[in-house]
């Protein structure tokens, strides 16, 4: 069973190579092959889900092989409930990104397909790797194909956006590399064992200030990816200029790698420093929620609007993570999944709209519900979900986050709730301007075809499932949450003991 984790990474990678080598000039075959590979990947992920035991403590699957023994670097993969759900999300969104780009990508389909598979391999690696260097390798590996995806298939200002995306994320991740190395040597000096093994490094005894600096190195990398308020400015550009598939992967998956990093590495590796840092991080989360929401209010470009709404939603996730209790962590994890599904669907719909109207400006759309009822209904569903409508996916997450945060600080919870209100305003306004009102004169509107409808239907089912019956997902998230909460308890009791 265990080696299937490696298959999750190497199947898309070999698929990418195969497509580039064998079908680099055959669009039809490349399309079929890329769909085949991504669906096979999805089936493997579903299989792992089927055989996984939600009640098990910690890691359901672990792969361990030696890689560079002299430096203590291993090929160490592990899957717990959190990575399982994120792997499922990845495996689902990649075929969706492929189907969405079926006709909208006009040239070099095979290369495009290969890049998508390479990104998939990188993201899978990020969600599975438990050796810090291996994690860093995958973290960088998903950057390059994404850069080319934006830089070569994007819209008008694609190069600017691609550079900005790359340089922001790269600077952050290099700081993380220094932190990884610092942790490695401190652990090595203390124990005599030089290793990048996550499990071994978990209980490293860090001197006060050093620990804080190392934690900030990790936080910098994840904060850029999420993105947290002062380092967010790459995101609206990247989302807006990327092709639809790129936006789906960025919003649905790449942002999630940042929050995943916080949960998997930042908190467990540096519990004391993270606890000390938590109020600042929560404040940054609040600023992100409000800032994203207010900027979304004034956007004309529909993709930019959704991009700013992502900053706002991810603010909730950061808030929930650093509130650090049962409800808020559950909420943050569910919101990660919900945002991934909802926002991907919205970007997909915007992509379909753009294919038909060649514009993303709200001022040039309007009255589209009449000529395109199916598209309009679908957009309504996902807009309501993004607003936090009860019964739909985001509501569960946002509600749990706010319930958890309220226990820590009522004022933070109220500020967060303001963000939801603002969200309702800009999302409804967006819907009104695009779908209702005067009928646009363009006579060539055609409604969703079968391919587009089925893509959106899958996502719609997920949104309803997450909203109405999140229990199966929460089961998987129980043990990762418990581990993180236990850290909090240990640190707090440790501090109390010290003060007595």
């Amino acid at each position, binding site marked *: 069973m265990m080696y299937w984790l490696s298959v999750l990474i190497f199947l898309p990678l070999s698929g990418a190579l195969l497509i580039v080598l064998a079908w680099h000039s055959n669009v039809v075959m490349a399309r079929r092959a890329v769909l085949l590979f991504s669906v096979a990947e999805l089936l493997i992920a579903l299989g792992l889900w089927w055989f996984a035991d939600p009640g098990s403590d910690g890691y359901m699957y672990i792969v361990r092989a030696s890689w560079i023994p002299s430096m203590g670097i291993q090929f160490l993969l592990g899957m717990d409930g959190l990575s399982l759900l994120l792997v499922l999300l990845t495996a689902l969104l990649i075929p969706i990104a492929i189907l969405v780009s079926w006709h909208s990508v006009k040239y070099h389909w095979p290369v495009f397909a290969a890049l998508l598979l390479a990104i998939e391999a990188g993201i899978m690696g990020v969600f599975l790797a438990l050796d810090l260097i291996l994690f860093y390798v995958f973290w*960088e590996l998903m950057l390059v194909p994404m850069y080319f995806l934006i830089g070569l298939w994007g819209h008008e200002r694609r190069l600017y956006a691609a550079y900005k995306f790359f340089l922001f994320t790269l600077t952050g991740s290099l700081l993380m590399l220094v932190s990884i*190395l*610092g942790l490695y040597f401190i652990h090595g000096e203390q124990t005599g064992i030089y290793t990048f093994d996550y499990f071994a490094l978990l209980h490293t005894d860090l001197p006060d200030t050093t620990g804080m600096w190392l934690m900030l190195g990790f936080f910098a990398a994840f904060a850029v990816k999420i993105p947290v308020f002062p380092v967010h400015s790459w995101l609206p550009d990247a989302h807006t200029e990327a092709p639809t598939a790129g936006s789906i992967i960025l919003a649905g998956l790449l942002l999630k790698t940042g929050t995943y990093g916080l949960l998997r590495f930042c908190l467990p590796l540096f519990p004391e420093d993270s606890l000390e840092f938590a109020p600042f991080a929560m404040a940054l989360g609040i600023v992100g929620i409000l800032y994203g929401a207010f900027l979304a209010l004034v956007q004309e470009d529909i993709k930019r609007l959704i991009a700013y709404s992502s900053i706002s939603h991810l603010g909730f996730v950061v808030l929930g993570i650093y509130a650090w209790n049962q409800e808020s962590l559950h909420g943050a994890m569910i919101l990660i999944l919900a945002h991934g599904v909802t926002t991907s669907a919205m970007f997909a719909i915007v992509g379909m709209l753009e294919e038909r109207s060649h514009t993303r400006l709200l001022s040039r759309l309007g009255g589209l519900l009449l000529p395109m009822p199916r598209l309009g209904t679908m957009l309504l569903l996902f807009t309501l979900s993004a607003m936090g409508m009860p019964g739909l996916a985001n509501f569960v997450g946002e509600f749990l986050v706010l319930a958890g945060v309220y226990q820590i600080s009522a004022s933070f919870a109220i500020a967060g709730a303001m963000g939801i209100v603002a969200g309702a305003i800009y999302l409804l306004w967006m819907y009104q301007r695009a779908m209702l009102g005067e009928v646009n004169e363009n006579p060539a509107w055609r409604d969703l075809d079968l391919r587009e409808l089925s893509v959106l239907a899958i996502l719609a089912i997920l949104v309803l499932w997450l909203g109405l019956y999140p229990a199966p997902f929460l089961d998987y998230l129980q043990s990762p949450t418990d581990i993180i909460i236990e850290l909090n308890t240990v640190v707090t009791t440790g501090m109390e003991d010290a003060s007595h």
Partner: protein
Amino acid sequence: MQAIDLINLGPFIILGFGGITVLGLGILPAHVSTRTLAAVTIIILILGTVATTLWKVPHEIDGMLVFDRLSRLFVQLCMLGAIVITILSLYYPTTQKEMREEYLSLILFTTLGMALFISSQNLVMAFVGLEILSVPLFALIAWLPKQQHAIEGGIKYAMLAGIAAAFFLYGTTLAYVNSGSLNIAALGQSLSDGHLPAIAVTLLLVGMGFKLALVPFHMWSPDIYQAAPAPVTALFASTVKAAVLIFLIRLLCLNLQPVWEALLPLLWILAVISMFAGNLLALLQQNIKRLLAYSSIAHIGYIFVALAAGNSLGRDAAIYYSLAYALMNLGAFAVVAALALTGKDRQTLEDYRGLGRQYPILGISMAISLLALAGLPPTAGFVAKLLAFGSAVEAGHFILAIIAVINTAIAFYYYLHILVIFFAEEKEKTGQIIAPLPKGTLVSVIVINSFIIGLGIFPELITTGFP
């Protein structure tokens, strides 16, 4: 002289006689084609490589030459480099007609110089190696005198090599004054307390700094990178620098550890200024050869980050980085040479617009080489940076590590810039028929890039087993 000495001297003898043989082919009454000459050269280099595998290591000859795994690895690298350079020159449109016995024998002689320099155990031996290495390069740089700046470049290089040699000799004399010996192992055992050893080594470092284009001795490098024919640039941008680095590591890290520790602050400063100067000057550069010249300066800076750590990891990092550095630059310049037009190289970045799409293999190779230079996994460039930054962190040089990291981020900008132009749409379809690339060039480019990726995934092949 024993039989084992003779076996170990094999590669040097093969290279020396090989050079004379190739030269001798010119006086045969019958005309020998350029292809045949190149084939003979490559066979000699392959024989030399095979001869290194027969080495008995570790072994030393009269305190002059030392044979260990380090020298074997890098002598092999220089031979591989020379083979690639020969193939590139054979198909390089401008040297094609000019490449005769002299050119090829000069390549063999300069390789001999590198091999001697890498394995020398004695300062005078090292000086001899350095000169055998340098003198053929003067001629090779100015090989096409009608090209713009060619003569100027050759003379510049000769003058600088002269100054570098003067510094090197001055350092040698001071070292001799200090300990009465020129054997670097003996030097290490009889260090006096005063400043003399450190001054001597600093002068040697200056001498080698000219060859490495270390800031502040870097002024020559962009001009000469641009002036020389691309295959020659590939030669002195890759293996020559690796050879100099290896002698520096042998001198400083393997034999004179006390001096190494005394010089750490100096190395620290050199690392910082080289990184910043190289990267910032490269940032706005529009000429690809000059850009790569500045990026090389920055890479020497990264290697000095490792050397400034002063620990065994730093030494291993510097060794690994030297190897990776040679391969990455060889890869990048090989593509530049392969894409050259008749009569001149493509100079500005704009000249390369869309070529990655026209020539997919060269495009992917360029991407691998540049991303390796940028330090992206899973290439050798990443492991090299990992080891280098790791050694700095181990030595407690957090600030240096962060400066290096910031520089790496800056460098990404211009490497990506090249790649984007490489893969961008052509401005207009020129309707030219795309000439098929010669197989030899393709094979050598693919081999280099497989090494870059292979050593990135399996760095253990290199990093284990050095003293």
